[in-house]
């Protein structure tokens, strides 16, 4: 399941007994959600690059309810039998979506022309407890996926339990231990694939920088660092190491946010450079330019998009 980080379990006693009485530890802020631990680094270094022509049209019916029409015309990669060769097939995909956003209740549904439905729902039952559900449903048998998440937010900690199909169970916990540092852990168990694992994560943030790291028993170690050079510019770097498959990737990138545009660029240790520009041309109209150049595989992807509404 995409986005599933290895789970790690820190017993609650360890995290809470570290609290001393110098800083006001009873009033620590609430940490970010465990899944968004690397949020700033991922937002700067991993924009939604695309290839081809893209149109996103959001039709607002009222403040909370809108329809979205997404069209992407361009080459899509198909798996090739000979390694080192990339096969691309031109295709065009249209996706219709209906979205309802209320402060306490959110519903989002997108359906493609193949009949594949991507549904998300989120409900805040109380101020601290929320339930989320996420499903990808297809007409093909046994290819559908569903996931339920139950989140509880405490004064300086967050905890989440996830249940999914294929006997997936995962739980994670993150706690602010000092005003800048938060530590967390996660455990998961996938019944169908007979896999289970544990993971640990840490995040240190100040006004100027954010550093975070995550280690998991599935073999993944991630470290990243974001430095806010000024209000408009931030630099980020990221290091990913898979100690089971001995795969290392590191990237360095920048993120410039100006009044009318946002530019993100990065260069990778795999020989990939990419850039993504979003320009607010006028009210309600945004132009997107995306480029990803893989010098090693000789794969060049350029995209042009328009975002309306």
């Amino acid at each position, binding site marked *: 399941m995409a986005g599933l980080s290895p789970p790690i379990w820190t017993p609650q006693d360890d995290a809470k007994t570290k609290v001393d009485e110098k800083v006001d530890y009873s009033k620590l802020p609430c940490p970010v959600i465990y899944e968004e631990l690397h949020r700033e680094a991922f937002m700067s270094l991993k924009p939604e690059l695309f290839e081809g022509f893209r149109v996103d049209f959001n039709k607002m019916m009222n403040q*909370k*309810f809108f329809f979205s029409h997404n069209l992407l015309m361009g080459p899509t990669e198909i798996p090739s039998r000979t390694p080192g060769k990339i096969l691309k097939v031109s295709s065009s995909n249209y996706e219709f979506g209906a979205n*309802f956003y*209320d402060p306490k209740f959110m*519903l989002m549904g997108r359906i493609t022309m193949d009949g594949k439905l991507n549904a998300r729902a989120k409900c805040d039952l109380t101020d601290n407890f929320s339930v989320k559900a996420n499903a990808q449903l297809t007409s093909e048998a046994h290819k559908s996926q569903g996931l339920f998440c139950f989140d509880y937010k405490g004064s300086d900690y967050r905890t989440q339990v996830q249940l999914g199909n294929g006997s997936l169970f995962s739980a994670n916990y993150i706690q602010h231990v000092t005003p800048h540092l938060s530590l967390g852990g996660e455990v998961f168990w996938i019944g169908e694939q007979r896999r289970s694992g544990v993971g640990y994560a840490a995040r240190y943030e100040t006004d100027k920088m954010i550093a975070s790291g995550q280690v998991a028993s599935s073999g993944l170690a991630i470290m990243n660092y974001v430095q806010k050079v000024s209000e408009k510019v931030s630099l980020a770097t990221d290091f990913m190491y898979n100690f089971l498959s001995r795969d290392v990737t590191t990237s360095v990138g920048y993120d410039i946010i100006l009044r009318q545009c946002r530019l993100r660029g990065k260069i990778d240790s795999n020989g990939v450079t990419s850039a993504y520009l979003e320009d607010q041309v006028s009210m309600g109209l945004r132009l997107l330019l995306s480029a990803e150049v893989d010098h090693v595989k000789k794969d060049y992807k350029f995209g042009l998009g328009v975002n309306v509404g």
Partner: protein
Amino acid sequence: MESTISLKLKGKGKGSKGASSSDDKSKFQVVKEWSNWSLKKAKVATHYGFIPLIIIIGMNSDPKPHLFQLLSPV
């Protein structure tokens, strides 16, 4: 004729014995079958009904949008 009738009676007897032993196990099986059936129906209902549900909820939220806004492309 008589031989076929006696064979049939034997077959029925065996069948009923088999059913009584499987009845004890079948409570769990029944629960599993019902949960599988309900999950399949829920999946089909979600697949067809989720987007219409969002549209119905959205059209009834305030300020209430007009029906023609739903159908017009602008």
